[in-house]
């Protein structure tokens, strides 16, 4: 095993981890806050890609389309997320298992609508400056190829994480979110509008997934069912990371990304899935609440 191979795989792992992280952040945030998992979250990823396609097919110039697609994908999916929260999710607080079923239904509907509209999926043409790759053709590292699109996804996810940290740590809404996360009733008693916090966080989470979808569209075509190929791993990221922890989600996404990338190159995709799952179950033997555990005196802390 040479260093070129390792670097290429590390890079693939990193790019996979960034998409997983963007997909899982929203899940982790709203799970931490409301103890519900949105199974239609993968479809937000898909719809983000669809928005990117719509932006491009509306005749915007190639250079501009990505810069328009990213914010629009974020806004559109955030709005849809808020709508989903207000119409469905809010009625299901305290019933996490029923939420799984209801949101699975939402995901079925969204998938089928897109499949009926575009049976073969849609694709987004990455702008010229994203084509090509950093490739080293001589020296000890000859053969290392780092495509620009993947570098772009990695940078994007780093920016999102930084923005999120700033938001949570240095703004009022961030303070409210942290307060509700720690003790919903106490925060509510102190005048925090918890309903507003719930909707905002949910919308933020789906928006980030939409953003990830728009970025994903530059790498692969967007089909109606593309969400389902990322979502199960995103769930695993939430489980591994620990309830509602961004740092945990980051660690878990990196771990899953690297392991998947290496196992897939050593064995096959299917063996990689099995091994990853076994590793997750094994890891939970050691840390059943994930990487980062929020200390709490509550008895019934997990959903």
């Amino acid at each position: 095993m040479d260093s070129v191979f390792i670097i290429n795989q590390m890079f693939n792992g990193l790019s996979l981890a960034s998409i997983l992280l963007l997909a899982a952040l929203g899940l982790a945030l709203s799970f931490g806050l409301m103890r519900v998992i949105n199974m239609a979250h993968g479809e937000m990823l898909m719809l983000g890609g669809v928005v990117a396609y719509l932006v491009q097919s509306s005749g915007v110039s190639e250079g501009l389309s990505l810069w328009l697609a990213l914010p629009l994908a974020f806004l559109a999916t955030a709005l849809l997320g808020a709508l989903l929260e207000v119409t469905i999710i809010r009625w299901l607080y305290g019933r996490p298992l029923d939420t799984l079923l209801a949101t699975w239904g939402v995901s079925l509907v969204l998938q089928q609508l897109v499949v009926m509209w575009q049976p073969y999926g849609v694709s987004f043409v990455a702008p010229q400056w994203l084509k090509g790759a950093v490739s080293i053709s001589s020296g000890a590292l000859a053969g290392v190829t780092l495509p620009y699109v993947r570098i772009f996804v990695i940078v994007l996810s780093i920016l999102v994480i930084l923005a999120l940290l700033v938001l949570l740590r240095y703004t009022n809404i961030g303070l409210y979110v942290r307060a509700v996360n720690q003790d919903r009733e106490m925060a509510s008693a102190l005048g925090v509008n918890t309903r507003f916090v719930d909707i905002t966080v949910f919308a933020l989470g789906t928006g980030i997934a939409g953003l990830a979808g728009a970025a994903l569209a530059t790498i692969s075509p967007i089909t109606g069912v593309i969400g389902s190929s990322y979502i199960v791993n995103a769930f695993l990221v939430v489980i591994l990371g620990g309830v509602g922890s961004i740092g945990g989600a980051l660690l878990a996404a990196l771990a899953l990304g690297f392991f998947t990338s290496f196992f897939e190159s050593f064995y096959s995709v299917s063996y990689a899935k099995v091994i990853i799952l076994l590793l997750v179950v094994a890891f939970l033997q050691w840390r059943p609440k994930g990487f980062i555990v929020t200390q709490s005196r509550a008895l019934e802390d997990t959903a």
Partner: protein
Amino acid sequence: MTFKSLLNKNTLSIVLALICFVLLFLAPLYLSAFKLSLLGRFLALGMLGIGISLIWGFTGILSLGQGVFYALGGYAIAMHLVLVQSGDKLPGFMARSFKPRILELPWWWAPFESPWFAIAMVIVLPMIAASLLATLVFWRRISGVYFALITQALVLAFTTLIVSQQSYTNGFNGLTNFSTIFSFDITTENGRRVLYLITVVVLLLVWLFAQWITRTHFGKVLVSIRDGENRTRFLGYNTTPYKVVIFTIAGIMSGIAGAFFTMHAGIISPRDVGVAPSIEMVVWVAIGGRESITGAVLGMVLGNLVADSVSSRFPESWPLMLGALFIVVGMVLPKGLVGLVESMRKSFENHRILDKQGKAIAELDAGEAYRMRQNELQSVKGLSGVNKGV
């Protein structure tokens, strides 16, 4: 819910269920062999539904991965059936296989030549898989949403594995082209009838077993785990073994269901056991009523019958309808149709009690009102007297 009301509710549902079973036993008299086989398939799923009801409705564990145990049972019996069909030669798909090319029967296929071994495996494989998973996960007190998501990841990994091992499992196409078990042809009309009757008998046994186990002390502990696992722990019960045992029982039921489904359908493939079918099984149980064993069977059988005819007629819009169904069940019908009927019956009874009470209260009120008016008059008089005095 008290123990007594549980019993009352159950006596009603048991009578209904027994009528259903009589109708099912008589079905060969009024259904064609084809319809019988279709019904048999869904009755097999009914066994799986009983398992889901036991773990979800009674114990509060949601598994989105029952397809795994179902597949283990289905593939175990299918391996035997395929070997019978191919006789001394390699099964067709193995003979045609490449990457890896298979020249002789793999060692783990060989024992399935014996029907007894295959039938034993229908029970043993899901038992091992379910108890292993349950022990590992429940031991660390991982439950609720986490458990549901882990089982979904499991079923995804499992089906991907089956699909990828084309040479050993015939991949996406699954195992098919078989007809004989114990030198008895199950594809003839008579064979189908016999197989159907055996299915009904096994379903009845599974149903009786579930009725029995939910009435034992063990069953009561399950319900108390559902309603408050920590409280149950505080009462001195180690809840983990209870959850492991019931999850294993449900896994075995799924395995048996898979075996019967395979024999009725003549095929078992990853399509029947993947992520989507596994969660659909759950929603049919939810529609019937997860807290009622009979409701679970009814939901599974009727739901699948409806799904079968509607989805073939409206293939495009079926997923939309199914999605809407998931949303409705999750949001407004968490206890299913049985729960709906139950709550209607309760509110009717409450009304009756209220009516009786209402009359009594009205009578009381009348007396009270008279007395109050008298008092008022008295005090007014008194007041006015005082006033006068001033």
